[in-house]
């Protein structure tokens, strides 16, 4: 799972008026700069609960294709109880992604019913909705001002889902760095209540693409946070379409 996978839902939410056109251009530029044919990394996910209980998971992530039409496979490698469990995500430009899960212990794949998209993603602080790649035209947005995040100057962009779009969030504040168009923070609100804050750090250029290698999601309601770290990150690696099918998922 990389930043693109996790935050794509917050990225491309842009249409609008003359003032909003700038904001849209900013986010479109951010999208273009992070575009790649494929991606691969080893991720470490650390969930810190309100009682400071920490759980750790590791996986290998592979993606093929670009925004809106990408396919990704995520295979858990640790802890031993979940080793071999895999997720196949097939994104669509016009609707929610299809997701399947493979559980080797019962040798079964299952379609993940993502109907309640506000549900937490396997006890992390991400929700299933946060995993989706979505059409930018389904959101309105406007430039909400400027800000400084981790010492870097940023544009602050407010995005709101259009009426046709159902979302647990009524608005989001997205901070985009002015120097490299990298998203460094997203605050998701329901009405005026902050639901999740996503903070991106350890920003490095990998294979020519500026990428945050650490993503922290904070849930103020639960007082918990999830930190995702990317290792062995590579872009545009040669991957085969056949490796992103249900059959491939079952092969392990």
């Amino acid at each position, binding site marked *: 799972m990389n930043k693109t996978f996790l935050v794509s839902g917050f990225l491309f939410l842009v249409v609008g008026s003359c003032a909003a056109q700038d904001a849209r251009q900013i986010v479109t530029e951010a999208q273009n700069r992070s575009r790649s044919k494929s991606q691969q990394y080893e991720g470490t996910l650390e969930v810190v609960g309100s009682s400071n209980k920490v759980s750790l998971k590791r996986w290998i992530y592979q993606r093929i294709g670009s925004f809106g039409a990408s396919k990704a496979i995520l295979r858990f490698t640790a802890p031993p109880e979940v080793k071999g469990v895999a997720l196949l995500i097939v994104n669509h430009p016009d609707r929610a992604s299809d997701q399947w899960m493979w559980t080797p212990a019962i040798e079964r794949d*299952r379609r993940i019913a993502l109907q309640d998209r506000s549900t*937490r993603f396997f006890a992390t602080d991400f929700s299933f909705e946060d995993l989706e790649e979505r059409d930018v035209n389904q959101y309105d947005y406007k430039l909400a001002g400027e800000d400084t995040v981790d010492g870097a100057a940023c544009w602050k962009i407010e995005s709101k889902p259009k009426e046709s779009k159902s979302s647990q969030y009524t608005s989001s504040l997205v901070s985009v760095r002015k120097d490299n168009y990298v998203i460094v923070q997203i605050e998701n609100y329901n009405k005026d209540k902050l639901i999740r804050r996503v903070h991106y750090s350890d920003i490095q250029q990998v294979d020519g693409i500026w990428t945050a290698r650490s993503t922290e999601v904070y849930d103020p309601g639960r007082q918990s946070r999830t930190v995702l770290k990317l290792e062995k990150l590579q872009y545009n690696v040669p991957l085969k379409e056949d490796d992103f099918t249900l059959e491939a998922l079952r092969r392990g």
Partner: protein
Amino acid sequence: MILLRLISWPYIRKHLLRWMLTLAGIVLGVAVFVGMHTANQSVLYAFRQTVDRIAGATQLQISAGETGFDENVLDRVQAVPQVRVAVPVIEAVVSTALAGQGNLLILGVDMTGDRGLRDYDLESGDAAVDDPLVFLAQPDSLIVTESFARENRLAIGGKIPLSTMQGEKRFTVRGIMKSGGLTSAFGGNLAVMDVYAAQKVFGRGRKFDRIDLAVSDGASVDTVARRIKALLGPGFQVQEPSARGQQFESISRIYSLTADITSAFALFIGMFIIYNTFQIAVTQRRAEIGILRALGATRRQIRTIFLGESVVAGLAGSLLGLALGIGIARVMTGYIGALLGEVYGIAQRADEISTDPKLMLFAVVLGVITSVVAAFIPARAAARVDPVQALQKGKYQQLSAGENRTRRVSAFIVALLAVGCVLLRKYHALVYVADALAVVAALLLTPTLALLVARMLRPLLKLLSPVEGTLAADSLLQAPRRTSGAVAALMLSLALVVALGGLTRASYDSILTWLNVALNPDLFVTPSESLTARDFRFPEAMVDQLRAIPGIAEVQGVRDARIEIRGTPIMFVAADVESLVRRANVPPVAGDARTMYREAARGRAVLASENFALLRGYKLGDMIDIPTPRGLLHLPIAGIVTDYSDQEGSILMDRSVFKRYWNDDTVNIFRVYLTSGATEADVKRRILERFSAERRLFVLTNRDVRRYILRLTDQWFGITYVQIAVAVLVAVLGIVNTLTVSITDRRRELGVLQAVGGLRNQIRRTIWLEALTIGAVGLILGLAFGALQLYFSLVIVVEDIAGLRLGYEYPYQISLALLPVILAVAFISAIGPAESVVRGSLVEALEYE
């Protein structure tokens, strides 16, 4: 009120024992009514609560009877635009090896989407579920309720041994649900499991039991239900969760009806005791009534006094009955829950009783009305008392010849009407009318017949004991009003005993015949100890694996499940008909044995059980529309056979049809025939050796299955025995009441007897013989009327309610057994009153009244 206080209360206080006995009739009737209904309602309530709590925010449930359906149905339902969330469910009840825990209801759900419908309270704390991904990844994962965890001292990571298709497995607690709606389902003995793991654990293949769904905001539930029904076809039921409670009620309706009949009968017999008491009270208080009338009391006031007394008696009796009924319900709820679970194979767990205020109020009203109705005729008689005649002692004690003639004529007319109704019995309701008329005719004839029998018995009594016998017989002959109520109550009770006894005997005989003909395999291989439980199933591959075991000649795989036909869940039995007939050629009730089995074996017809045909109005050759997941299956009924697989009836079809239309090749039971020379014990051992390591199974011998079925039958008839006990108890109360009255009434007479030299033993014997005579009269009339009641029971209860045709056979054994029992009971009930007379003060007795 003033009259009640000044006139009634002193009389009641003086005859407190008699009034207590009178109240006992109402108490018992109301108690049985409240007890059985509350127990039944508690079981239903527990089932509904479980359904309701498990349903959560579910607005519609999709099922295909008990057969389940393919996984792809879920995709089709989820694709319906107005469906907000649709999730698969598997439900099963499994036994735990935890001490004292019994069964655990397992809810197999897909946790990735299910939280849209059910609140597991997993989000509220880190401890709720340790790791959802591990929960899904490991098929041994369970989430249990907080109460279950607490009771069994289980924490996250704790182990629970459960019976599965792979034998007993240890499951791991990976989550604990905090207390809330869902957690109290099934009495808190609930565990959640991943639905795909549940498929494997319970041998469901790639099928779900049902889909729970909620519609999108603004969408109409009815519209979505219609749309899904149109999409999936008639083989699926799309209903609100509450419909499951209604199905349970429909399946267990025979039990509810039995409860109604028992309590109605108890109240009806109780009515005679009240009638008797009031009749006696009116007789004893004639002088008092005469004085009141002479002082200017109107007839209405006199009637009001007696009716007022009956209201107070009814109210007191009903309230005591309520208390006793709740006690009965507490004892019976667990028993009825277990019985319904075993007979119908439907999981529920009733730990607490649920009292319904409406039922309580109804019971009180019923008790009071019964009391008032019973007292109405005596009250009217009291109002009509002529003040002059009232002060002349003795005249009132006999029924006038005119009164007797009127009763006989009325009885004759009513009996004729009853016969007319019987002749027109094709209109079912008329049979009920005929029975009611027969009871009325019998009651009208009771005084005449009682006198007749008492006269016939007089020489015998005289022979037995010249003085005491004659005195006892004359006491009955001279005061028919005093005894007719008790005799009527005894007669009705014994008639009920004879009818129920005959019914039980006929049912047993019929079931035994069926067992001998149809259930003749040597061994039965089942996935559950209970033959009615259908939570576990075997894969079809086991047929060949079993056949390969030395000593096995033939294996028949049987799949049974309830499928909804015209709104009622009907049991379907799918088996290899050709093989079935070869081994067990059940003679048809209707149809040609040669062709009907052939047609059924080829999948061109089905066979209906006799009770299904009778209850649902199907005849030989009728077409039956069977809803299947692949659409409506339209097949003729080629034959009607006797089959007791299910109380609501069953339909037998070839397994090939079931496999084709339900896409289901799983098996509930294997019927195993042995080769000649092979022994049950050896083959059973081989089967267990072959499979016990890899799957859960039970090998039952033919004797085991017979014992199991007969045990279930016994449990079912246990309720009948309760009816019999209530009937006998009420009758005994009637005798005790009558004797107490008789003795009080004749205290002076008995005192005079003692004063002129009558020995205590002679007085004792007189009372004993009087009691024995009442018992004998009631016995003779009851056994005779029972013969008629048995006929009606067979027509009404059997054909109309249970859908069975049983042969008429008078239960001589039961009648013979009743003889000493009733006479002994009559004798025992006479001991107290007799002793009270002989040990009482002679002076007081002579001064009495």
